[in-house]
């Protein structure tokens, strides 16, 4: 029986499939959800759902319809695995929606298996499929590697000299890593090879482009398809450098909020709380160290994981980190972080129509913008249609962000006393994509000047 899953990016899904293979799972990622999936989702789900429900449920149905047409007995051939939760937002109710829609669509016996995402990190879960620690650690490894490949891809792609070179590198990189995960050979060795391969991609980092941080609701910020109007790819076409959020931040957040919850209730049984906190801290440390190890193997070029404590501290005056649901305080925290740490010129927060927590955290962003003088922030709601409207809102802000990036580049030139001629000469010497740039300015081009 093949295990279907989805909802992340192509990089994550390729690597997860490879990582769980040695454990005996034949995992098959669903295609990236598109507007046809949205239409099918709307047809078979309850009305009034948020659109990640429609996209993800519709995507599964679309796949099953296709396989049924091909003559497969889908209820015997496949099982669908997805994360679940116990609230507070309706993400936890997706499971019921999957089952309902599958029944409506003529697949009453199709199996949907869920694992509780918050418990996934520490507890084993039994069910039709066994989710043990080995399984979750394999998936986490694959997710981290996918994050790092995506990070590099978006850092390099906007500056590539030969169109498509970065895409070819990404394909090769995923192949190398998938092979290592499948065979159980050294991932670090594979990462070093990935880095070497990247050095072959030629770039011009001296073109000032605005960095655009994509935040928002988890599905909307992560998907690479119609669910966010292919935002990251479109930003590159529009002359920007997108900064995507690693899924690792979400995993780290789950550990962090569990710690918060234990601390809040520690007065009931202090000894038990101390033990649990130590275990969570150790686990958190392991996760962060693993991410850092892989990052270093890639020459330290990808961004390090953000500190959850910092995100919470930045968000707290606006949005209490104890308010759960969706990305919780993180959308606000990431906005402040991006400005304070010069991570981006523009922050785009993407939320699907009907997302409850994300809409509310947007409600405080107007004050964040007011307090962080000079922050460029735009929030867009994705409905599946109204693409032109959403993109034109981003474009208006992108124009200002481009100005900021250009100004920053010119300022860096002055501060470093560099002439155009020197920069041009250096650009030939510094054209390797794997170059690790210092992080003094927000713009990649301005930071590249520090190497001249």
């Amino acid at each position, binding site marked *: 029986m093949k295990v279907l899953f989805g909802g992340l990016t192509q990089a994550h899904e390729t690597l997860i499939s490879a990582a769980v293979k040695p454990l005996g799972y034949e995992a098959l990622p669903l295609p990236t959800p598109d507007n046809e999936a949205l239409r099918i989702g709307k047809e078979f789900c*309850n*009305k*009034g*759902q*948020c659109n990640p429900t429609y996209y993800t449920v519709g995507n599964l149905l679309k796949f099953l319809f296709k396989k049924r047409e091909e003559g497969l007995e889908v209820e015997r051939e496949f099982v669908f695995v997805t994360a679940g939760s*116990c*609230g*507070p*937002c*309706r993400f*936890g*109710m997706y*499971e*019921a*929606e999957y089952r*309902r829609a599958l029944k409506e669509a003529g697949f009453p016996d199709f199996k949907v298996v869920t694992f509780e995402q918050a418990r996934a990190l520490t507890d084993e879960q039994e069910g039709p499929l066994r989710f043990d620690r080995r399984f979750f650690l394999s998936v986490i490894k694959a997710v981290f590697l996918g994050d790092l490949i995506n990070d590099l891809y978006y850092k390099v792609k906007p500056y590539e000299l030969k169109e498509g070179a970065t895409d070819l590198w990404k394909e090769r990189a995923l192949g190398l890593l998938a092979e290592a995960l499948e065979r159980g050979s050294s991932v670090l060795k594979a990462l070093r090879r990935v880095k070497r391969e990247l050095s072959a991609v030629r770039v011009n980092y001296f073109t000032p482009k605005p960095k655009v941080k994509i935040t928002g609701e988890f599905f909307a910020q992560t998907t690479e398809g119609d669910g966010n109007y292919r935002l990251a790819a479109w930003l590159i076409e529009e002359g920007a450098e997108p900064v995507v959020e690693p899924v690792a931040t979400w995993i780290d957040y789950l550990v962090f909020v569990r710690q918060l919850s234990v601390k*809040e*209730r520690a*007065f*009931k049984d202090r000894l038990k709380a101390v033990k649990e906190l130590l275990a969570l801290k150790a686990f958190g440390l392991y996760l962060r160290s693993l991410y850092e190890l892989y990052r270093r193997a890639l020459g330290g070029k990808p961004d390090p994981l953000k500190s959850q404590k910092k995100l919470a501290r930045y968000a707290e005056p*606006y*949005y*209490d980190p*104890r*308010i*759960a*649901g*969706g990305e919780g305080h993180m959308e606000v925290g990431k906005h402040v972080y991006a400005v304070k740490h010069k991570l981006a010129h523009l922050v785009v927060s993407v939320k699907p129509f*009907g*997302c*409850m*927590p994300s*809409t*509310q*955290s*947007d*409600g*405080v*962003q*107007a*004050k964040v913008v*007011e307090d962080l003088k000079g922050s460029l922030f735009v929030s867009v709601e994705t409905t599946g249609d109204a693409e032109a409207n959403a993109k034109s809102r981003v474009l208006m802000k992108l124009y200002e962000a481009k100005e900021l990036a250009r100004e920053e580049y010119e300022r860096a030139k002055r501060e470093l006393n560099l002439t155009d001629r020197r920069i041009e000469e250096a650009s030939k010497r510094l054209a390797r994509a794997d170059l690790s740039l210092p992080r003094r300015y927000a713009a990649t081009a301005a930071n590249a000047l520090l190497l001249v």
Partner: protein
Amino acid sequence: MSSFIGFDAVDALTYETKRGEETRCSFCSNYCVRTFIDLSVKGSKKRFIVAPCEKGTVETKEELRALLRKKSRLKDEFPNLVREANELLFSSYRPEVVLQGGLSALLNRKKRRTLREAVVGVPRVLNAYSLAPFFRTYFEALGVKKVVFSSYTSEELYRKGAKRGSIDPCYPSKVALAHVHELIYEKRVSVVFFPCVRTLPKEVENAEGHWACPTVTATPEVVKAAFTKERDEFAERGVKYLNPVLDFEDEELLSRQLFKAVGPLFGVTRKEHELALKQALGALKTYKEKLRRRGAELLEKLKREKRVGVVLLARPYHNDPGLNHGIPDEINDRGYAVLPVDALPRDEALLNELFKEELKSGRIKSPLEITDVWPKCYSENSSLKVWAARFVSKVPYLSAVELSSFRCGHDAPIYGLIEELLASTGRPFFTFHELDENRPAGSIKLRVETLDYFLKRYEEEVLR
């Protein structure tokens, strides 16, 4: 027996229609023009009056008085418990003031003076419709000068105070800005108490959780941001804005969270806080018991008189007439008792009898459990809606009207389930979904007329 007059009489029937100054109604300031249709058949005459409201269906003051008397009697017999719930929710439970003297009082005399002089404003929105007795009693027990609530939602209130909004969540959340505006600019409170209620008191049993809706929980943060965005309007008016995160599912944790927010600010000792908290929890219990007693009495009466009552499957804040757009009143005006979810009795013997089948088969361990039909029951108010729908499905003299606000993320996943539960037993079920700030009075009236028609037939065909 049919009241058809026969084909011969129909052939002989004549009628005359009048519409003009002579048919104008003078029973209210609207002075509507009505249509009189005078039928005449074989010497007997009958007048039909087509009027926009019930008052217009009569001609003389005596007839009007009789009509109103009849309506009032009907309302007394079959009341709208949504109105009664609101009265119970927002009245004072007259707690004993717990502030004590001693060294602590002396050391904190300035803070305690602020407390004694405090006018605490609680926005009459969202979770206030389930927790107001708690909030009011707690502060009254601490000896504040006064606890006031904002008015019920109205178009005027919304227009005056909602201009600061920068997002578009559901109307029940959006309108909170206007309520806080009224509290600080018109009711001139010194403290706004608008907690981020994260979890609700446990009612549904063996549930995955008892979460409040995340939109509701975060609304106080959005309100705070809106009032402090360009300038700090709270500071300008000398208002303290208190929005602690509170968990009502865990009373020990709730006590700590509330004390942390209130204790140091007003120089309240832990003991005083605990005494106030105890009374506040007691008031909440009293409110529920009183309302449920009324619910139980009403159910008995409905059963005895073979009448059908209407259970309002809605979130507690739909008790707000500005959010429910007067739908419960419209239904009640037509002689039907209306019960909110909170008014459904929780008497053990009654529930055990109603749910005996499920209990016997082991599908549920408690009559307040819904895991067999809705395993993902972590949102308390959604769970209560599902439970209430199931309650209705077990009681032949009950029907259900579901209210839901536009963009309600927690209602959407249970629409289908509620329909299934009620349809399976043939209970009359009506929906008013996607309610927002617009009050479609005409369409509400039409739909209530339809509802009236169906309920009458249900009473005639099923209950009698």
